[in-house]
C-alpha cells in the first residue's frame, strides 16, 4: 500500500495536486461505469458520488492516511478511493461478488468498509456513523495517539439525533474529531429548507461550543486547507470542528430515483456548470501542473483500469448460498439451529 503523509504546507505540492485530480477522475469514472452496468442490467442498484468528489478527496488528502479514522457515508466514493479502494473493489461490490472487500456481497453498494484502511463499516440508517467516529477518536486519545477521526454525513443526516449527540459528546470531551457535512441541498427529494430553518449547517457548531466552517465544496484546495486547520486543532487537543462543504448532487438520489420530478432543469444545469472535475482541471492547467495531453493520457489510463476491473468483477465468483451463515459471531456458526437450522424432525416412517 502506498503511504501518504499529510502535506506540511497548507497547499498540497504540485505532484499531490495531480494525484488528487487522478483520484477525483477515478471516482467519477468508476461511478459512471456503475450507472452503465445498471442500465445494462448487471448492477441492481447504484448510489452516486457525482458532484461531491471535491469535498471528499480534498479532505482526505489533508489528513494522515497512515493513522486517521474515517467514517464515510454512502456518497463517499471519493473518500474511499483516496484511501486506497480500487475500481475493482467497487465493481465487485456493485455486482455482489464474494471478493467485495466492503462486505463480501452482503451490503448494497456504496456501504464502504475496510479495517485495513480504517474505513468504518456503515449501515443504511443515516448519521449513525457520526457517533462511531467520536468513539474511534475517544479510543485514540485514551491511548495517547495523535490520530483523529472524521465523520462524513449529508445535510439530511444532520437532522438525526445521532448527529447532535455526536457533536455534543465530542465537544464536551474535546475529542479529535472532524465533522464533514457534504451539503448537496437535497435528502432524496426533500430540499434543505424543509430539512432545517437555517442556511448554513455550520451555524449549529456554536451551539456545541466548536468552530463551524463553511467551505466551497467545489474548491478542492480550499477544502484541503480548512480540513488541515481542523486537523491541526484536533491534534493540538483543541477539540472538534464542524465543516460544511457546499456541494451539488449531479445525479438522482439513486438508480431508483428520477430527480427531474422534483428539481428544475435550470437548477440542474447550473449545478452541472459548477462541477468540480472541469473546475479542478482548469486550475491545474492554468497553474501548469498538468497539460492537456497529460490529462487525456490520464483519462485513458483510468479508463483502461476500469475496463480491466469490470472484466475482473464480471468473472469473479458469487458467494456460496451457505456463506449467508458466516460471520454472525466470532465463533463462526456455533449455534446452527440458532441461525435457522430448523428442528431435528424424524423422517416419516
Amino acid at each position, binding site marked *: 500500500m502506498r503511504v501518504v503523509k499529510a502535506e506540511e504546507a497548507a497547499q498540497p505540492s504540485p505532484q499531490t495536486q495531480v494525484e488528487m485530480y487522478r483520484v477525483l477522475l477515478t471516482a467519477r469514472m468508476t461511478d459512471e461505469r456503475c450507472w452503465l452496468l445498471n442500465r445494462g442490467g448487471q448492477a441492481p442498484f447504484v448510489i452516486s458520488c457525482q458532484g461531491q468528489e471535491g469535498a471528499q478527496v480534498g479532505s482526505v488528502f489533508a489528513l494522515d492516511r497512515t493513522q486517521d479514522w474515517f467514517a464515510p457515508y454512502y456518497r463517499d466514493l471519493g473518500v474511499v478511493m483516496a484511501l486506497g479502494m480500487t475500481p475493482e473493489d467497487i465493481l465487485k461490490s456493485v455486482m455482489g461478488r464474494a471478493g*467485495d472487500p466492503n*462486505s463480501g456481497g452482503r451490503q448494497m453498494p456504496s456501504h464502504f468498509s475496510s479495517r485495513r484502511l480504517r474505513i468504518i*463499516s456503515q449501515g443504511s*440508517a443515516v448519521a449513525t456513523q457520526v457517533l*462511531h467516529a467520536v468513539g474511534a477518536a475517544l479510543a485514540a486519545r485514551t491511548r495517547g495517539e495523535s490520530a483523529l477521526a472524521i465523520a462524513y454525513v449529508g445535510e439530511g443526516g444532520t437532522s438525526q439525533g445521532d448527529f447532535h449527540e455526536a457533536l455534543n459528546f465530542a465537544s464536551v470531551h474535546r475529542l479529535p474529531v472532524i465533522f464533514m457535512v457534504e451539503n448537496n441541498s437535497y435528502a432524496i427529494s426533500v430540499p434543505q429548507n424543509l430539512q432545517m430553518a437555517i442556511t448554513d449547517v455550520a451555524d449549529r457548531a456554536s451551539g456545541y461550543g466548536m468552530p463551524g466552517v463553511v467551505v466551497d465544496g467545489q474548491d478542492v484546495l480550499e477544502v484541503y486547507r480548512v480540513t488541515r486547520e481542523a486537523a491541526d486543532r484536533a491534534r493540538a487537543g483543541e477539540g472538534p470542528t464542524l465543516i460544511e462543504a457546499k456541494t451539488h448532487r449531479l445525479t438522482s438520489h439513486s438508480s431508483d430515483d428520477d430527480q427531474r420530478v422534483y428539481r428544475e432543469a435550470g437548477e440542474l444545469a447550473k449545478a452541472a456548470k459548477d462541477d468540480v472535475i472541469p473546475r479542478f482541471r482548469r486550475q491545474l492547467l492554468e497553474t501548469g501542473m498538468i497539460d492537456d495531453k497529460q490529462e487525456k493520457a490520464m483519462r485513458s489510463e483510468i479508463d483502461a483500469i476500469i475496463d480491466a476491473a469490470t472484466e475482473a468483477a464480471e468473472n469473479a465468483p458469487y458467494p456460496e448460498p451457505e456463506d449467508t451463515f458466516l460471520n454472525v459471531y466470532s465463533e463462526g456458526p456455533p449455534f446452527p439451529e440458532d441461525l435457522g437450522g430448523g428442528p431435528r424432525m424424524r423422517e416419516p416412517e
Partner: protein
Amino acid sequence: MAGLGTHKTVETSAGQLTYIQAIQSALRDEMERDESVIVLGEDVGAKGGVFKVTDGLQKLYGETRVIDTPLAESSIVGVAIGAALNGLKPVAEIQFADFIHPAFNQIVSEAAKMRYRSNGDWNVPMVIRAPFGGGVHGALYHSQSVEAFFAHVPGLKVVIPSTPYDAKGLLISAIRDPDPVLFFEHKKAYRMIKGEVPEGEDYSVPIGRARIAREGRHMSVFAYGLMVHYCVAAAEQMEEEGHSVEVVDLRTVRPLDRGAIIASVEKTGKALVAYEANRTGAVGAEVAAIIAEECFDHLDGPVVRIGGPDVPAMPFSPPMEDFFLPDTERILGAMRRLAAY
C-alpha cells in the same frame, strides 16, 4: 425514585457476595487486568452509578477510563461502538433497561450487524449493562424487562445472570467476548441475592450455556434472572407435595442453550417457562417453540408459560405491581396444574 438505589446491603460471610458485589468485583478485576476496558454511562463516575455498581472505579482508574457521559443513550452506545472498533473494550451502562430504546438503532442496526455486514472484517467487543425487572416500585419506566427485543437479533448475545457466581463469571466472559453482549442485571436481585463467589480466582462462566439450578424428574421449569429464585422456591414446595421439579436457569437468552432445554424436557416430559416480561412474543415463546419442535414425542402435557400480563408495563401502586409480577405462589399454581396432567 426514592427506594430504588437505596436498598440496604445484606451482611455477607467470607466468600459470600451479593449479586451487585459480584458485578462490582468483575468490573474491577477486568479493569485491573486489561487497560483497554473502559466504563461509560450516566452517573457512573463520581456518583458510582445510581445503584453503585461502578462505585469507586473512577477513583481507581481515572476519568479517561470511567466516563460520565451526556444524558443521551444513543451516544453512549454509538460512542462505545466506535471505541470498540478502535481497540477498546467498552462497558457501557444504560441506567435502566427502560431507557435503552433511544439506543435501539445503534445496538440492532450497528453493533449487531457490524461483523456480518463487513464479512468478518470488523467486530464490536462491547458490553452494554443495564438493570432490568420489577418489584422495586419502579413503575412503568424503571421496571421493564426488555430482553425479548434483543433476543430476536442475531449478532447480539443477551445474558441474564441469576446468582452472584454467574453474575461475576458471565460478566467476565462478556467483557472478554469479541462480540456485543447485552448484560441485564435484575435490580431486585442486586442486594437481595447473595451467594458463594470464589475469591482471588480467575474464573468465568461460558455464555450460551444454561445451568441446572435444581435437579428434578417430573417437570422442567425454565427461567432466568429473579424468576429462577421464585421457581426454585416453588419447586421445593412441590417436592413436599411429591413432585420432583427441575429448574433450568437459562442464563443466556440469546443464543439459547437448546441442548440443555431439550435434554431436560426429554427427561421430565413436562415444561413450564416463567418470566416477567410481557407474555406475548417473549423469550418464553421461543423456549416453548423449541420444545414443541424438538420434544413432541416426549411431552406429557401442554408447554405452559407464566409471564407478565400483556399490558404496557408494570404499574406503580403496590397492588397493581404485585399483580403484574409473577411470584412463587403463581408459579406454584401453574406447576400444580401442569403436574396434574
